[in-house]
């Protein structure tokens, strides 16, 4: 019987397999940041262990870093200590680090692909759940906890039980104005936050094949939001074109060898998935969340649901609590919801295509009074590229704040936070209670919806905006 893409990549990385034990998997790339690594390095130090493969390890500073006043020391002493601890650890253990101020600094999941380090058929881990992003290249990539970070540092392997496989087949084509973000939010509303639990998911079908690498990353990024172990997409010409010529991409003869291998990384025709979901992209519309988990979403043209309409008691209770937290009334049209802050950024939607899409909407327009638009590039390279294209000027002329690179308001570990009761439309990945600041209320949206919302001050899509004179 044939094998799925995920099974092929898995099998290639099994170091050791024994009855009744998880497989021991070799890890091709271990990405590190300041929040989930300090206790792991401390563990190594206490046990007198070294980093087995510093040459397969890369660190960057992203979660805590400020996006303003980058020439000054980090103001929050606790954040500063964490960042300085990472610098000391990388120095002591010989790990390559892209610190604040370095041209390669940025969100770890933006940096890996941008450097060409993320390649098809790899195993990639990081102490961050959005590591699933790298699956867009046909890699098995997943988030791990700090004990596992220590394990990978010490052994370059991880014991892992073989997950089940699922196919998400998306037929048709996304209509104009509907993006990868809308697709994945639609999917999560369909499955719920636990629907992918225990599965490695392969996204496939015509709608996926048409997507750019950056759009594919948006989809794989949010695999974890419906509980999947990892999400991946078979590499194709789009993938190879994206990688070729990047700093860490294979060069010369190596390129040919790598490409020959990558072209075998497809699910065999007779392979069987443990589960399959089929969606039709052509019926999708801009999609936004109303609640406090990413599965609580509706089309932008819809309304805040009535909790009583949910069949399941648990869902009903969750919806009631969500509406209370979000300060929303059932039956309110989503387009009537007034937003205070719009955040464009994060490992979900902080890449150059996302900034281009948002800039195209605000160009020649202005951010609504009482609304603030925060644009945070995913990496320094993305920021520089955007500035080369004049996008920073477009944003600033529209009244937006143009910031330095980092995770920023996605999780509010730096000063970029919502005030209690403040409402955001955010291109990030989680609308959990307090995620963007204590008491903050988050609506997850695409970059297009974010930009249009910044202009109108209420949830909107570019189609809702009056045409420019």
């Amino acid at each position, binding site marked *: 019987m044939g094998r799925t893409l995920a099974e092929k990549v898995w099998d290639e990385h099994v*170091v050791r397999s024994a009855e*009744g*034990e998880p497989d*021991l998997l*070799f890890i091709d790339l271990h990405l590190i940041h300041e*929040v*989930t690594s*300090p*206790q792991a390095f*401390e563990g190594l130090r206490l046990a007198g262990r070294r980093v087995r493969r*510093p*040459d*397969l390890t*890369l660190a960057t500073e992203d*979660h805590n870093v400020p996006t303003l006043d980058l020439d000054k020391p980090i103001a929050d002493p*606790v954040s500063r200590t*964490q960042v300085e601890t990472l610098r000391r650890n990388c120095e002591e253990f010989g790990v*390559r680090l892209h610190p604040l101020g370095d041209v390669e600094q940025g969100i770890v999941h933006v940096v890996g692909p941008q450097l*060409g*380090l993320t390649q098809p058929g*790899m195993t990639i881990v990081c*102490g961050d*759940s959005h590591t699933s992003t790298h699956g867009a290249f046909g890699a098995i990539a997943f*988030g*791990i*906890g*700090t*004990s*596992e970070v*220590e*394990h990978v540092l*010490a*052994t370059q*392997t991880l*014991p892992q*039980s073989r997950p089940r496989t699922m196919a998400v087949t998306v037929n048709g084509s996304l209509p104009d104005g509907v993006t990868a973000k809308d697709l994945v939010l639609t999917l999560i509303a369909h499955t719920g936050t*636990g629907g992918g*639990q225990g599965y490695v998911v392969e996204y496939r079908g015509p709608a996926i094949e048409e997507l750019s690498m950056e759009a594919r990353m948006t989809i794989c990024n949010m695999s*974890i*939001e419906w*509980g999947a172990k990892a999400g991946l997409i078979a590499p194709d010409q789009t993938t190879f074109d994206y990688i070729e010529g990047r700093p*860490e*991409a294979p060069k010369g003869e*190596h*390129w040919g*060898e*790598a490409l020959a291998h990558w072209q075998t990384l497809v699910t065999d025709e007779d392979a069987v998935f443990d589960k399959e979901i089929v969606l039709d992209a052509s019926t999708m519309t801009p999609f936004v969340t109303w609640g*406090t*988990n990413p599965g609580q979403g509706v089309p932008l043209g819809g309304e805040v649901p009535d909790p009583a309409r949910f069949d399941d008691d648990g869902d009903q*209770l*969750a919806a009631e*609590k969500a509406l209370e937290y979000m300060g929303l009334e059932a039956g309110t049209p989503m387009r009537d919801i007034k937003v205070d802050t719009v955040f464009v950024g994060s490992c979900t939607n902080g890449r150059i295509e996302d900034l281009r899409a948002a800039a195209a909407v605000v160009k020649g327009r202005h951010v609504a009074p009482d609304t603030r638009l925060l644009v945070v590039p995913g990496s320094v390279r993305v920021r520089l590229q955007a500035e080369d294209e004049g996008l920073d000027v477009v944003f600033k002329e529209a009244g937006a704040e143009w910031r330095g690179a980092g995770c920023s308001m996605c*999780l*509010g*570990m730096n000063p970029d936070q919502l005030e209690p009761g403040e409402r955001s439309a955010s291109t990030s990945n*989680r609308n*959990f*209670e*307090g*995620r963007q600041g204590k008491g903050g209320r988050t609506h997850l949206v695409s970059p297009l919806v974010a930009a249009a919302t910044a202009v109108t001050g209420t949830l909107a899509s570019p189609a809702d905006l009056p045409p420019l004179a």
Partner: protein
Amino acid sequence: MEKFTQHTGTGLPLRRSNVDTDQIIPAVYLKRVTRTGFEDGLFAAWRKDPQFVINQPQYDGATVLIAGPDFGTGSSREHAVWALLDYGFRVVISSRFADIFRGNSGKAGLVAAQVTQDVVEQLWKQIEHDPTTQIVVDLEARTIQADAITAPFQIDDYTRWRLLEGLDDIGITLSHEDDIATYEAGRPSWKPATL
């Protein structure tokens, strides 16, 4: 890691589904570089409400958390497990755990016991009726017993074995160092490196 065979303690009924790790411990509490002292961040936002279940005195000293489905979703932060352990919990019972949370629990010595939602409901009722109910979690037998309730729970064989033996994962893996070296020797030369 300490061995875990059986635990007896009182319970805390958390009647919420989708308890994500941002709720278990908000990001602002993740800035420590040490491994201990995370109990102050546990459910930090919810704890501000005096009615929140953890603030109700009849549940003081509870060591077994019984939560709704999809517990531990979201961020990979192991700090969520540390916060629960530092606060005094030894066992979390739910009908469904997020993968990363379950993995992290097994590494840090917190037992994530999966039962049916029906058992969760029975336990909630029993504890709310009598908060002094002693809950016995037997990892050897994979059973939970509380008053008249006796139910099996699921935990994977390997994690159970490691918890019972109190084994260090890294130590186990390093005993297979020859296998790792053999694998490394066979990796294609075009695979990327960071140095």
